[in-house]
């Protein structure tokens, strides 16, 4: 029992170490510009453009339900016009980046793990190596950079969509006074909220791509190995995003206060 727990802990730590080494190698490779520009553009298209619908729907409905729930609570203390301010701050610094990352982890992280995992079990990664191509240069770096670029852009879309949808629900369905609601929203939303959201989404982009690629490159043999790698990529990326969100919020809010943003 004790040995089993010890084994799991040491296995987990070894995995963490390997992901760190992968990240280091990928970042070093990114600076040497050995990756293909066409591959980078394709990955930006795949991660950014193709994820838009799911991110926009998520942003819209999260904004709407947040507006409705906030309104029902605030209405009791006659603070109806603060509804949009709550939605805006939440969407920009927390819900926008986190929900976008979770949706992209489900869609893109799984796809990365499955694609690279299949390449591994069919010896395509070995073929890359025999063709004097480093798998990290060819497979990981374009996905990592594309994810870092696409996630903040998708997050901005989710933020804007959430706020727009909450305005529609608040003003047209719940009858909030639009001028005061809008004014309050601008008053209580700061540049730092948007900036924190963007920094978070940049980091989440890296987490999703690294975990997806790592799980694909280390997947077990056969269809079962690929299936397991795909599931683990989504689960681990989602959990890492949620856990790191807490620490990022504490750290970034502190920095924002220190810098007086």
């Amino acid at each position, binding site marked *: 029992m004790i040995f089993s727990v010890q084994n799991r802990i040491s296995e987990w730590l070894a995995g963490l170490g390997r992901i760190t080494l992968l990240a280091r190698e990928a970042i070093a490779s990114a600076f040497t510009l050995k990756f293909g520009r066409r591959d980078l553009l394709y990955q930006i298209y795949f991660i950014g453009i193709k994820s838009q619908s799911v991110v926009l729907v998520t942003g819209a409905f999260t904004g709407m339900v947040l507006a409705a729930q906030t309104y029902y609570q605030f209405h009791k203390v006659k603070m109806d016009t603060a509804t949009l301010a709550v939605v805006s701050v939440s969407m920009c610094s927390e819900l926008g980046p986190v929900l976008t990352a979770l949706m992209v982890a489900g869609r893109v992280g799984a796809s990365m793990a499955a694609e690279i995992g299949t390449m591994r079990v069919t010896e395509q990664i070995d*073929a890359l190596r*025999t063709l004097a191509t480093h798998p990290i240069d060819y497979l990981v770096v374009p996905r990592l950079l594309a994810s870092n670029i696409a996630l903040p852009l998708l997050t901005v879309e989710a933020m804007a969509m959430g706020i727009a949808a909450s305005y529609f629900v608040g003003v047209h369905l719940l009858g909030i006074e639009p001028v005061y609601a809008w004014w309050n929203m601008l008053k209580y939303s700061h540049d730092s909220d948007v900036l924190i959201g963007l920094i978070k989404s940049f980091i989440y982009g890296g987490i999703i791509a690294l975990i997806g690629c790592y799980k694909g490159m280390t997947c077990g043999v056969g269809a079962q190995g690929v299936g397991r790698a795909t599931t683990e990529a989504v689960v681990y990326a989602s959990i890492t995003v949620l856990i790191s969100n807490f620490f990022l919020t504490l750290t970034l809010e502190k920095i924002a206060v220190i810098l007086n943003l």
Partner: protein
Amino acid sequence: MIEVRNLQKSFGAQKVLNDVSFRIETGESVAIIGRSGGGKSVLLKHIIGLLQPDAGEVFIDGENIGPLNERQLLRVRRKFGMVFQGAALFDSMTVAENVAFGLRRHENLTEAEIARRVAGALEMVDLSGTENKNPAELSGGMRKRAGLARAIIYEPQIVLYDEPTTGLDPIVSDSIDKLMMRVRDTLQVTTVVVTHDMRTARRVGQRVLMLHDKKIYATGAPQAFFESPDPIVRQFVDGIADAKDLLDAKINLP
């Protein structure tokens, strides 16, 4: 020149290679034969640095590749072309993109020059006109040919074949054998073929190495090797599962 010295490799508790040593001269063509699961492919992957040995050394043109990291190995691997057992074509690319892969990555050529070289490589493997097909549309033999075209397009010094005729019918196997001989003779490359197909070993190899019981058990020119009276060699060459049957086969010989 390829030289393997005292190579040892285990996967977990299972030892696959134990003290394997041999040398392949530049331009030589060698067939490595042995039973399925006997470590032939593992040995081949050590030669190109896809696997790291537990002990022993692999020298390519006098350079020990053991201490090299993955990025340093890329330089050594440019001397190689490798044809995989399942072809390992990139399934997200067309045949032409697969074949052009090495050129696009490592040489600064115009699209017209790349297209010309791809057409030349495909013609050499009798696959002209398949440029725009996807690997999934090709038969097993065609996939092997496309894999060979991809391996030879940048004119490597050494070509490695991992079970090139496994899973193919005798007629397609014959065409692959002829293709390997054509590549060997036209490009003057060092050839290493891992196979358990005796006909391929006999035709393509100028020398045969037999891997048995985790070691190089026998070696020799094809003619002498296939006429060897050694019982282990005979059992494998004649394809007899039980040593007792070997005796019966000898008795029943005309």
